[in-house]
């Protein structure tokens, strides 16, 4: 007898709760655009924040509400943008793919070493105590904070202590830009070729004593380039981002140190085992 009472009681209770749930489901329903789930599914799901949104779902909502263009997702690249745009019937937008470039070429073979750093192996920690082992206080410390922070495995340290950014894998998420204590990374359009690989505000011999490949602020590049393409600012050449169609390799030819470089796809020569498509 008693098992039957228990079964009937539990059964009845479940029925009542099920009815409450069913009513609540229809009465308290929050409408959510079903396209959000679909678009989110098309996105890479890296939640990296490169688009400026906290995650892929927020970006999907933004695209559907028309506040962002699909191409703002640098991780997905043009294919994803195209897919999302076709699905939503909108324009994919025309953001050029960006990659992180290093504004320093002073590897351990070129830059003078001023001290032995033997503490906690992190650029950030080294920067907190007198700025690392190199004489140049603007240059790359080379303790691989960027390699560690990169979620896309795009950064590998070279034997000379500089990070190699694999432009094929780089998604311009900006994590390396944030972590570098010297602010040496800049996100540049992949079709930009002139890269000033130095951040020193010093000029002439003062900086040459510290690094062979530093910019001496001789301004020959600015003189040789088409007018207004390169402007000298704080002892460094600055490439005008609006005139990239006028870029020319001539600007780099008379550079006495090689601080300004003509970059095609990859900025540095990769390690032999690193595969670059």
């Amino acid at each position, binding site marked *: 007898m008693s098992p039957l009472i228990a079964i009937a009681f539990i059964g009845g209770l479940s029925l009542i709760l099920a009815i409450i749930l069913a009513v609540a489901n229809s009465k308290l329903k929050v409408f959510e655009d079903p396209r959000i789930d679909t678009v989110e599914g098309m996105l890479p799901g890296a939640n990296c924040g490169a688009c400026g949104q906290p995650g892929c779902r927020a970006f999907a909502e933004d695209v559907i509400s028309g506040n962002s263009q699909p191409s703002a997702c640098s991780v997905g690249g043009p294919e994803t943008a195209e897919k999302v745009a076709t699905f939503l019937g909108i324009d994919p937008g025309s953001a050029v793919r960006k990659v992180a470039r290093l504004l320093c070429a002073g590897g351990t073979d070129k830059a003078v070493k001023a001290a032995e750093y033997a503490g906690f192996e992190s650029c950030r*920690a080294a920067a907190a105590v*007198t700025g690392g*082992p190199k004489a140049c*206080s603007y240059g790359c410390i080379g303790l691989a904070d960027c390699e560690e922070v990169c979620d896309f495995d795009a950064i590998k340290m070279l034997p000379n202590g500089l990070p190699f950014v694999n432009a094929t894998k780089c998604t311009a998420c900006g994590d390396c830009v*944030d972590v570098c204590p010297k602010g040496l990374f800049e996100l540049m359009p992949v079709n930009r070729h002139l890269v000033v690989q130095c951040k020193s505000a010093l000029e002439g011999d003062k900086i040459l004593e510290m690094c062979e490949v530093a910019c001496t602020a001789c301004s020959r590049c600015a003189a040789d380039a088409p007018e207004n393409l390169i402007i000298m600012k704080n002892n460094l050449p600055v490439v005008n981002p609006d005139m990239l169609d006028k870029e020319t390799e001539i600007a780099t030819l008379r550079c006495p140190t090689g601080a300004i470089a003509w970059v095609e796809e990859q900025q540095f020569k990769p390690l032999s085992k690193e595969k670059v498509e």
Partner: protein
Amino acid sequence: MKTFRHGIHPGDYKDLTRHIAIERMPFTDELVIPLSQHLGAPSRLLVKEGDKVYRGQIIGEPAGFVSIGQHAPVTGTVKAIEMRHHPSGKLVESVIISRDPYSPQTFYNEHAMEWESLTPGELISLIQHGGFVGLGGAAFPTHVKLSVPEGKKAKFLIINGVECEPYLTSDHRVMLEQFDDVFYGIRILEKVLGCERFYIGIENNKDDAIALLNKRIPADMNGEVVALQTKYPQGAEKMLIEAVLKREVPSGKLPIDVEVVVQNVGTIAGIGMMFRFGQPLIERVVTITGPGIEKPSNLLIPIGTKLADVLDYCGGLKENTRQVLFGGPMMGAPQVYMDVPIMKGTSGILCLTDEEVTIREEYPCIRCLRCVDACPVYLNPSRLGALAKTRDYEGMLGYHVMDCVECGSCSYVCPSNIPLVQRFRVAKALLREKQAKQRKAS
């Protein structure tokens, strides 16, 4: 005996210089005055290349509220204004002054200041233009701490004569030799703050200073010397308040929130000196010590004197010297360049040899919790260290990493040699940058 809870007991190694009287270092030929020697905005330049400057003349004015004046420490000529190495490792705009070899180097404006008729606001402005920062090492502008916000009251003034860093003895010597300036300075600050009572906190490894100051407190002043048990980091503001008054500064709050203002004893002596003789902050007492220096001393050094000149004056470095630090062994900053200047916040120069500088291998955390027992602000460094290792900085916020005073006690006691405080400094820097970015975005 009074003290704070937790903390560590490193050896004090003060015998090297404890009994050596302060000696004035001669002026060197070239001095470098960085325009940024303090926390806050760099001072605004008032001189140009080729200008003649006099000892004590203002050469940089405050560029905002959290900024101070800079003065020429010697009579001479401005040789250049250029980027020079700074003890922080950066290149900082500095005024290079070459000394006039024929000048008697007397202070050009030597007279006592009439201060009793001035208002607190005017006194604060004088202290700001006098270029005063905390001489204990952090170099936080003094006048900012003296400007009590509306609605708050500074009931107590605590003078920090703790000097808990091993090796350093500059504050100790200042208390023994410049006690008149110290008490004069306290009178000024009492007028500025309107406080009821002052305390001079001194650790009990400086018996002579405790006895002397106790005897010399003027009869008309309301204050006392508090002897404290020797422990690190008692010189940290929040620890000192807890030790002296048994008051705890709440997380994210300042000493003024518990009605206290803390000032370093050297700063007070400097302020006393300025109002007694009119001389702004152009020189300070620095302890040059450690096993790596030939002649350990306590020197009165003009600010801007180059490190190499100071080391030469002290007989030079020994053969096996491995590291030269500005400050003490716990929180001091190692130096890369020998041409960096002595700054306002340089309390000591510590020269360590191969024997003291050891590189230790890091092992996994064994959960012994010695760091928890050592942390003076009651954090859990073990847990924070684990979070830092996985770069979970947001998670560290939940464990109050921002309350860390970076004293290094956790790293000191860790048997596994985990670089705890180093990781926390990285985390704090990244979190601060992130917060600044978010504030800018919103």
